């Protein structure tokens, strides 16, 4: 049996290679899903932690405990606590980064042994901080010696600068505790041997900064433990701080659950719960888990169409292969082979192929996964950002499932054939009547469902956005309706195509040259056999197009929106200090500030232009009926502002610059958001009065209305206390900075800057640091854009769509070629007859081209048409679900011509290869040999 099978496989090697390719791709695609999911979840969590770190400058992966122990008998409480803490990392399943134990005795009075009276040491706490010598830098004196006690029994301590000053201490001085004595009864003595500070101020060891150790003298840990802990602990009140920092980089999707559960346990149930502060990472993780659910559903649904195509490909090729074996099968049958035997043969063959498929597909899946993770944009990869691929049990489960699916798909077409006998073969060769789907009107039904989905969503756009905002995952029907639409349209095309061909045929019935005539006949009579490959072509091409447009649109819109929302390349807001209360206040209603030096900004590197922007989110109008209405005031310097910001003309009523010109020529003028006109009935030329946040009234004249302004969101969705999303209208007034400042005075403004082309913010950062600019707010557009692209949902979507696009293109190319080459080979005898009847080579070629035209080319065009239509209809719907909460700009459908060209080039390549094969076949066709084929 094995020999028969291997022989069969060798005989049909091209088909088998295609089947292998299909199985490999199918298994790889399936496997890449859990692989990517785990890997991206790993990274997503790390990214979340990273973001927190970057934003707050604090290590997020940390647990903090504090306990004050009084009269601890034999030090049991502290002992238990320490035991728990030492086990902590193991239980959480993390690797420790830093563990800091910081213990101190309660404040105790001291006196200088030299009798210096101005020593102010009535409040020092003696303590230790584990690992201090490794992390501290001595700025005066030295570190305490090993063991912490000198030969005279004096405890050596180090203190911070603050402590030294606060307590008026001197380095080298020995002090004596007034009321604290050792076992023998002699008072403890300490000697300040040095002053320390952070060796590296960014070191997360410094959870307690030296600057806040104002009354603490630190000594050696072991000495402290020997002297004050254990059985001696009973005598003291000891305050213990524990900081457990772990490496969040090591937390994976798999270990995250345990980490979270154990954290919750420690926080809510364990014996140490009362000593623990709420960890910041709990919230980070909760956000992460919620995101994860949404991503999982989305990515899976996005992969379904590609999986279906892969299945269809396998089904088609194996069907084709069995078709070619029809004769062999019926011969075997007539020699007494049973159906069961045949079926078993095919089953073994499928299993054999699936096993090889898995051997190739699983490693390929890992590669896919890496590729997915490095997707930067549609069909763009960033090789530096690679994912770690780890295989866990789920991956193997997915692989096994995919193998089983492969085996089934490849064996099912054999079911039909194994029952064939010669008689049945003859019968089934006769042309069949309409296909089942035609009778069932499947095309109409599918279109109906998808259009219903389309209609439903077009009607409920807003509700949909809100539900996404409330954290629900995307409705699968949304994806499904676009896929169903494609399939429905494809089937509809198949229903209509024969009629079109027939019509063309009838129109020129008398004039068709033999070649076209033969091609028509082939299509009219044999067209049904080609329906599957035609549908396959339509699906691959339209899905490919649709995927490309979806990916581009989602990402591009998200980026443009972010660009709009951020407004300028760089935004800096300095820390302003208030003027001493006794000086005169130049400001009208609010506090007076000292304006930082503005001229220094001219030395900012890599900057093309910069300007002052004053914004006040709490300005207000007094209206006739609605009372006080809040609005945002933006005061700008029009000329500079115009150099720095821009709004695409595509969306504004008139050019953005014109608005700025209007404002420049009218000092008292304000530009108002159009919703002020709509809700308050303002008109151009109206004199209005508004108040700033300190209550100063400013008179103004409305000179124009706008819909979009850099950074302005006309409406926003806010999540209410009950978790439901609510729409909120935002209004904006844009005024001249000079006018506003003249009226209300100078308040802290922001600096908006535009970078020179090709520059990033690195040098600006450096400039800020070098010049000691105290920044209270800093926005970097490039960084925020980066975050948008990095969003796992967007990136995963992009990755899956990119991969889907590549897989569909491969399938489309291979499927079409193998189908045509095989089906044309099987007609070699007919070609022989035609040539014998005197058909020229050119005519034969012409005939085959016509056949391609009627089915292949027509379905390619249908695919392109359906793809375009589907994109126009469904992409806006899909995009909405991604953009959700802060989408301001109207959706733009992005059809990237390069993507389309790629698709066309592949199709053209396929067609060219196909034609070349046909040409070779025609040229090589040996008429007498072909005719002999019929003689057996």
């Amino acid at each position, binding site marked *: 049996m094995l020999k028969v099978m291997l022989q069969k496989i060798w005989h049909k090697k091209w088909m088998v290679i295609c089947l292998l390719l299909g199985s490999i791709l199918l298994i790889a695609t399936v496997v890449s899903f859990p692989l990517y999911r785990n890997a991206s979840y790993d990274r997503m969590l790390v990214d979340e932690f990273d973001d927190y770190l970057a934003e707050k400058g604090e290590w997020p992966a940390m647990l903090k405990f504090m306990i004050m122990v009084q009269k601890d008998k034999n030090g049991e409480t502290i002992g238990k606590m320490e035991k728990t803490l030492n086990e902590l990392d193991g239980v959480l399943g993390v690797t420790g980064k830093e563990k800091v134990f910081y213990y101190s005795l309660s404040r105790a009075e001291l006196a200088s042994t030299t009798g210096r009276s101005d020593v102010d040491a009535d409040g020092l706490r003696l303590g230790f901080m584990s690992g201090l010598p490794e992390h501290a830098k001595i700025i005066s004196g030295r570190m305490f010696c090993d063991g912490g006690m000198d030969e005279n029994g004096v405890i050596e301590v180090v203190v911070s600068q603050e402590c030294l000053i606060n307590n008026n201490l001197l380095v080298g001085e020995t002090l004596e505790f007034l009321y604290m004595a050792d076992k023998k009864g002699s008072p403890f003595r300490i000697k300040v041997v040095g002053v320390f500070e952070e060796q590296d101020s960014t070191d997360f060891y410094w959870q307690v900064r030296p600057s806040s150790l104002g009354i603490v003298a630190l000594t050696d840990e072991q000495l402290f433990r020997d002297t004050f802990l254990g059985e001696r602990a009973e005598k003291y009140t000891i305050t213990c701080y524990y900081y457990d920092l772990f490496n969040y980089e090591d937390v994976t999707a798999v270990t995250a659950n345990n980490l979270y559960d154990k954290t919750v346990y420690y926080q809510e149930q364990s014996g140490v719960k009362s000593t623990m502060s709420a960890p910041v990472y709990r919230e980070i993780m909760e956000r992460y888990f919620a995101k994860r659910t949404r991503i999982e559903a989305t990515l899976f649904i996005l992969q379904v169409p590609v999986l279906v195509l892969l299945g269809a490909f396998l089904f088609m090729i194996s069907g084709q292969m069995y078709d070619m074996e029809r004769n062999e099968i019926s011969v075997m049958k007539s020699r007494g082979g049973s159906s069961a035997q045949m079926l078993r043969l095919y089953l073994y063959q499928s299993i054999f192929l699936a096993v090889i498929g898995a051997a190739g597909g699983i490693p390929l899946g890992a590669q896919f996964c890496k590729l997915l993770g490095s997707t930067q944009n549609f069909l763009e990869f960033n090789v530096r950002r690679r994912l770690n691929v780890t295989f866990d049990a789920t991956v193997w489960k997915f692989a096994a499932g995919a193998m089983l699916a492969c085996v089934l798909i490849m064996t099912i077409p054999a079911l039909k054939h194994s029952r064939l006998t010669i008689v049945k073969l003859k019968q089934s060769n006769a042309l069949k009547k309409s296909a089942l789907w035609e009778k069932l009107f499947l095309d109409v039904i599918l279109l109906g469902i998808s259009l219903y989905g389309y209609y439903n969503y077009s009607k409920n756009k807003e509700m949909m956005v809100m539900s996404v905002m409330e954290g629900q995952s995307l409705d699968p029907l949304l994806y499904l309706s676009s896929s169903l639409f494609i399939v429905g349209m494809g089937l509809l095309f198949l229903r209509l195509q024969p009629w079109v061909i027939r019509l063309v045929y009838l129109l020129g019935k008398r004039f068709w040259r033999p070649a076209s005539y033969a091609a028509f006949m082939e299509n*009219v009579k044999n067209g049904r056999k080609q329906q599957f490959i035609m549908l396959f072509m339509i699906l691959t091409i339209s899905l490919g197009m649709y995927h490309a447009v979806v990916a581009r649109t989602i990402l591009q819109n998200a980026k443009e929106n972010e660009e709009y929302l951020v407004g300028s390349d760089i935004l800096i807001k300095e820390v302003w200090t208030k003027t001493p209360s006794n000086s005169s206040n130049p400001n009208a209603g609010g506090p007076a500030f000292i304006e930082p030096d503005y001229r220094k900004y001219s030395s900012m590197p890599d900057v093309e232009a910069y300007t002052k922007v004053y914004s006040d989110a709490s300005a207000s109008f007094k209206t006739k009926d609605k009372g006080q209405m809040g609005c945002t005031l933006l005061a700008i310097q029009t000329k500079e502002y115009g150099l720095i910001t821009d709004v695409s003309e595509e969306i504004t009523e008139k050019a953005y610059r014109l608005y700025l010109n209007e404002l420049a020529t009218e000092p008292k003028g304000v530009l108002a958001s159009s919703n002020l006109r709509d809700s308050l009935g303002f008109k151009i030329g109206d004199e209005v009065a508004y108040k700033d946040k300190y209550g100063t009234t400013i008179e103004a004249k409305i000179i124009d209305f706008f819909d979009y302004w850099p950074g302005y969101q006309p409406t926003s969705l806010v999540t209410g206390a009950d978790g439901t999303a609510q729409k909120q209208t935002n209004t904006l007034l844009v005024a001249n900075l000079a006018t506003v400042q003249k009226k209300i005075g100078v308040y802290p403004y922001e600096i908006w800057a535009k970078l020179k082309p090709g520059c990033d913010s690195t040098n600006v950062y450096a400039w800020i640091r070098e010049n000691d600019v105290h920044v209270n707010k800093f926005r970097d557009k490039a960084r925020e854009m980066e975050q948008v692209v990095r969003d796992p949902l967007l990136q995963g979507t992009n990755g899956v769509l990119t991969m889907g696009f590549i897989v569909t293109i491969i399938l489309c190319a291979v499927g079409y070629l193998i189908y045509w080459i095989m089906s044309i080979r099987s007609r070699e005898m007919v070609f022989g007859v035609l040539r014998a009847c*005197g058909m020229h080579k050119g005519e034969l070629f012409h005939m085959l081209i016509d056949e391609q035209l009627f089915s292949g080319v027509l379905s390619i065009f249908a695919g392109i048409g359906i793809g375009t239509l589907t994109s126009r209809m469904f992409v806006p719907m899909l995009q909405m679900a991604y953009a959700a909460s802060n989408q301001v700009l109207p959706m733009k459908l992005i059809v990237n011509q390069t993507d389309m060209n790629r698709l066309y080039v592949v199709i053209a390549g396929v067609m060219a290869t196909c034609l070349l094969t046909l040409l070779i076949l025609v040229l090589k066709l040996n008429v007498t040999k072909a005719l002999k084929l019929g*003689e057996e």
Partner: protein
Amino acid sequence: MGENANYIIEIQNVGRTFNTASGPFQALKSVNASIPEGVLTILKGRSGSGKTTLLNIVGALDQPTTGRVIIEGQDVSRLNDYQRETLRRKKIGFVFQSVSLIPTMNAFQNVEFSMRMAGVKGDHKKRVEECLKMVGLGSRMHHMPSEMSGGEQQRVAIARAIAHGPSIILADEPTAELDSAMAAEVTKLFQEMTKKEHITIVMTTHDVGLMDAGDMVIELENGVQISQNAEA
């Protein structure tokens, strides 16, 4: 160029050697024959004797290694591929041993197709019907090849071979898949056609019973012509 204008087909010293994996194989050795217009020639011999090879050469489907074939006074071996194909579609009708119909066309369309190929002007429909009636298939014009028996298919092939009015019909074992009664009928049909339409027909057969039907018999054995007897 033709030495004798009375002969429509002249086979002069035709030999054919095939290059096979086991060295050259001579399938035909110096065959000579002159066939006059309007006769039915039977090419007989056992299987493998070279009948099909010779017929293919006469029909300009294959070229002889030695010698030449002259059709209507024209040396076929001097024609290029294109001219030979044109010769085939205008002057010659083929009937092959097994199925030679185009599976995607029905009987009518198959017959009409040869007229289309030959570029016959005028009313195709009448001529097709006439031809199909001639082979006794007037009632099955719109059947597909797959819906007909082997004999019926063969008769359609004959109708197709004559429809465009060729001067020569070459039939390779047209009776091989027919029962003896049917075979006799087909042969009779050929005889009638030579008489009525003045067509020259060459058919091969290994059926001993049909040998006498021809006006002329050429016998081959292992590629060697062993006899040619033209009827007196």
